[in-house]
């Protein structure tokens, strides 16, 4: 799947919110791409935008190429046909994602009958139990109701539901945020094995850099509706090119943290984002050119792709543009 210059804007009373504002990236089969960013940076909108699951008031343009077809331009009926057999989505809170009045069995039968009308009950049962078994759900609990399962079990059922028809692309929107540490690790192990067992391309959306580092091959760091930096996980973590990636890594508290660090200020209001590079108000390396012009996406020799004037093509920077930007200190209490 190739996403080219995708834009998703919401119309609200305060004007148009530019949740996703020109995002491009690739997702290849059997590869896991981690999409990471603080809350409110538009990563969920991007995840849902690809599958066309946006609320009514959202406007989308740009290209999401999948097997030669642009999903953004696809008529809704055809796009719905793809959801299930080709595209899958896993949500954050598992507790409310299953219909409380339907047994787990009926969820699977409904799914299989919708996409493969002719399928017999026995065959449908067998395939559902096979996927559920792979997720660690015992066959004896197939006929039970959702409220009889714990949070972790329900998330496994959701993943099984998404994987039953072997989709080529799976989007997981903060799949483990609502779960405890041990159950989170169990779910991450399942998602990381998707490559081997189901040859699925996985877009894993999270705010936790640790999950991206351990479970993803490539990573894309998103800030205020745009991708600041993307590339192979090892390269990006070892030598972050974009100042935001660097600051985010430093402010993440992990077992190795010996010193607290934070990024001053708060993520911008997407209805009226700062001009030019949207990180410039909070960026320690901000230069004069940063608020003036949008940064240009560039591929660095090490393999990352970054949108920042620090690496910007020399020619496009007006002279004097690289002088540090003077601006008044951000107040301590000016925060998210």
């Amino acid at each position, binding site marked *: 799947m*190739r996403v*080219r*210059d995708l*834009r998703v*804007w*919401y*119309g*609200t*009373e*305060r*004007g*148009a919110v530019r949740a996703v504002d*020109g995002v491009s990236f*690739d997702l290849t089969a059997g590869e896991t791409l981690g999409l990471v960013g603080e809350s409110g940076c538009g990563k969920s909108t991007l995840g849902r935008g690809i599958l066309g699951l946006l*609320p*009514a*008031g*959202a*406007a989308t*343009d*740009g*290209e999401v*190429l999948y097997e030669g077809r642009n999903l953004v331009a696809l008529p809704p009926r055809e796009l719905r046909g793809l959801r299930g057999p080709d595209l899958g989505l896993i949500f954050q809170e598992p507790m409310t994602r299953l219909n409380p009045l339907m047994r787990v069995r009926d969820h699977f039968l409904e799914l299989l009958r919708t996409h493969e009308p002719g399928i017999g009950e026995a065959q449908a049962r067998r395939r559902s139990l096979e996927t559920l078994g792979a997720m660690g759900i015992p066959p004896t609990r197939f006929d039970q109701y959702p409220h009889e399962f714990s949070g972790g079990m329900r998330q496994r059922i959701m993943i099984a539901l998404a994987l039953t028809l072997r989709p080529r692309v799976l989007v997981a929107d903060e799949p483990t945020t609502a779960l405890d540490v041990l159950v989170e690790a169990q779910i991450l192990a399942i998602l990381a094995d998707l490559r081997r067992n189901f040859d699925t391309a996985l877009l894993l959306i999270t705010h936790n850099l640790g999950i991206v580092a351990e479970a993803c091959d490539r990573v894309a760091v998103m800030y205020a509706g745009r991708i600041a930096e993307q590339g192979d996980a090892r390269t990006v973590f070892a030598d972050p090119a974009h100042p935001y990636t660097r600051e985010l890594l430093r402010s993440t508290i992990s077992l190795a943290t010996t010193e607290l660090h934070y990024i001053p200020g708060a993520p911008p*209001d997407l*209805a*009226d984002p700062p001009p030019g590079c949207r990180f410039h108000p909070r960026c320690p390396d901000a230069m004069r050119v940063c608020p003036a012009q*949008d940064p*240009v*996406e*560039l*591929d660095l*020799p090490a*393999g990352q*792709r970054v949108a920042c004037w620090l690496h910007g*093509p020399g020619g496009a920077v007006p002279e004097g543009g690289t002088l540090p930007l003077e601006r008044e200190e951000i107040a301590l209490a000016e925060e998210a």
Partner: protein
Amino acid sequence: MSTIVTGSGDAATRGTLAPARPGRFTLARRWLAPIRTAQRLPRWTLYAGAGLVVLFVLLALLAPLIAPYDFDQFSSHGVRFPKQGHPGAEHWFGTDVRSTDVFSRVVYGSRTALEVVLSAVVFSLLLGVPLGLLSGYSGGKLDRLLVLIMDALFAFPYLLLAIVIAFLLSDRLGSGVVTAALAITVVYVPQYFRVVRNSVISVREEPYVEAARALGARPATVMSRYVFHNVVQSVPVLATLNAADAILTLAALGFLGYGIQPTVAAEWGYDLQRALADAGAGIWWTGLYPGLAIVLLVLGLTLVGESLNDVLNPLLRRRRLEKVQLPPRPGAADAAAPSPGPPPDAGPGGRGEP
């Protein structure tokens, strides 16, 4: 839906911290804020409903000025009014079987209705809300007992209850406004009790109530300063919808003959019961106008209640999502739309758009 064309020019209101205007009304203004910003449908129904209610309030207050005759006057200057006379210049709504002027009875009827309903709502508020607060916050045996009693009252066909109480009280207090109001009160106390109790129970679990207890605040302070504020917001909606219901109950009592006796005051339900006999003979005006009066007043109150509920209840308040029209992609207009080139290959130049 209106289309918002976004140019880089128009500066949408930045989300700056609104300068705080200290003063007594800040709290009230915060409550009313959602109403001011209500969107199309709820705002329109709110104004329509309010208009109707105001009309009837005016009718009630200025009844003597508006009504040409007294509510039980059947003659003027010695001339007796026609019996079941057709609506005409003399009697806009015609006259009924007791040859009293229908228009005057409708006008005075609004006064009775509002009087009874207002006192009923106030009585049930004064009884239901404190009981609900106490029971919701204290819990334990008192709570279980009260809930059982209120549920029993709630399950009972309320009209039956109202009739029996009105009937029993009429011996002692006479069948005037007070009896009707008390009869209706008993019916609605359980509703206030239940709504207030449920919201107290949900608020009691909120962290800021626990924080108040952690600070050492006495239960009374916790209830008044922390719990009351957040519970009382649901009462206005309930009061309006209840008032609408009370009017129907009052009319029903009147219709069955247990409401306010005709000699005491004009009452639409009673007039309708009289008009039922006329209907057989095709006399429509004696029933139509009091009936319409009931419907319009109840409609007004329900619309106000409904739209208040739509506006205040965050769940129902639907963010008005206007269709947004994307401007052409910056810089894409002049360059050919980026052809889906080969996947980003390595190399310094890259494929950046200008």
